[in-house]
């Protein structure tokens, strides 16, 4: 990570997989800002593209397609 965070702990042995076709950002139900907040709505779109690229991403549920 750049710039380095103030406090960070990482467990090297615990890894989670992300599926580009299914991954999304969502507002917490108790968050003070909700859909319609332009700053975050647009950031969610931007960061999906930054993380996964422009796509399109095939669904892992598609028959015959191995994850």
């Amino acid at each position, binding site marked *: *990570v*750049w*710039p*380095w*965070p*103030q*406090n*960070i*702990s*990482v*467990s*090297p042995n*615990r*890894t*989670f*997989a*992300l*599926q*580009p076709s*299914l*991954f*999304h*950002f*969502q*507002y*917490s139900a*108790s*968050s*003070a*800002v909700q859909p*319609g*907040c*332009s*700053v*975050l709505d*647009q*950031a*969610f779109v931007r*960061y999906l593209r*930054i*993380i*996964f690229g422009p796509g399109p991403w095939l669904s892992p549920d598609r028959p015959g397609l191995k994850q």
Partner: protein
Amino acid sequence: TVKNSLEVFVAVPGCDQFPEMNSVENYTLTLNDDHFILKADTVWGALRGLETFSQLIWRSAEGMFSVKWTEIVDFPRFPHRGLLLDTSRHYLPLQAILETLDVMAYNKFNVFHWHIVDDPSFPYDSVTFPELSRKGSYNPVTHIYTMGDVKTVIEYARLRGIRVLAEFDTPGHTLSWGKGIPGLLTPCYSGTTPSGSYGPVNPILNRTYEFMASFFQEISSVFPDFYLHLGGDEVDFSCWQSNPDIQAFMKEKGFESYEKLESFYIQKLLNIVSSYKKGYLVWQEVFDNGVKLSPDTVVHVWRETKPLPYTMEMQNITKAGYRVLLSAPWYLNHISYGQDWQQAYQVEPLDFEGSPAQKSLVIGGEACMWGEYVDVTNLTPRLWPRAGAVAERLWSSQSVRDVDLAYERLAYFRCELLRRGVQAQPLYVGYCEHEYFQ
């Protein structure tokens, strides 16, 4: 385990406002078995957390995306983490500015210092004084920033949590202003006759201040940030010295030095800008020359060694009780062979003699990219990843300063910039999995 969402929680409502100097940018990011959650006080903190999240994700050679169990508690060390672009020495196309804002956000910079006009050109297309850009820009059709362009930059920056700090530098650095506003600049003399050349803004005429009042009224409404940068650096006194009207004015006022005359001008300008409920930043000469400043003024240190080493200047400014911003060691337009990012990285902004109260007046710093030898062809590689060194110094803890560890991470981050489509230059020998591809 597959995780398919990141939950985002923001504590404080508000989405339509602009980021400010004291906006809170802290966040926590938790990626564990129970949940993936990003918590922040404000949307600006959430933006910083999203950027961090994006950097944690790995892509395997087979195309799998994964992220490790992670806990992050993060906040910036300094509230003002800026980058200066100079759009007068060379015109920078709008797209180049927007791309720079993108990369600033990747580095958690939060202030775009727009040194928009200077001696060579006046690309800001003023509504009140359209002649300024019509006559002062390189090309009044193709090389200007229209009101629409300016608003685009401001909104693009806002959506990335970046403030736009506009600088209109006077009384020096104003040759381009004189083309559109006859009588604004001081006529220089050769002996007893005008030489045909012009110097700084003419400080002895009432109409100068009438113009400044109208001009800064527009600027105050166009740029929403509370602060404006009013410059005040490098005033060449030789033209004032040559002009008999200036000499008579100084005699009448009892001014013994040209610093006093400059102070007279700056004082009147500061009063004008204050009347529009704006705060201001000034370059260090304004403080050095003893101009009376309001207590909330920010003094911007840019001179590295003369007249004082910048650490002594920081000491003096904070001793006088003013907040200070550091740029002197971060002139990234200066280049040299080798890994010169390391010099920028090793700077410690609080490395001067002073009390804890003085140190608390250091609000941050800015990397500067002056434009004498920089245009759109070399802006991005000269800036990145070198400006990243400044970004980490201003965001991360004071204790994060191991150059070898930084090299590993910055080299990796530079590869990530290439993957994101940024033409960041290499730090040294090596390669990236994703080389730059247009």
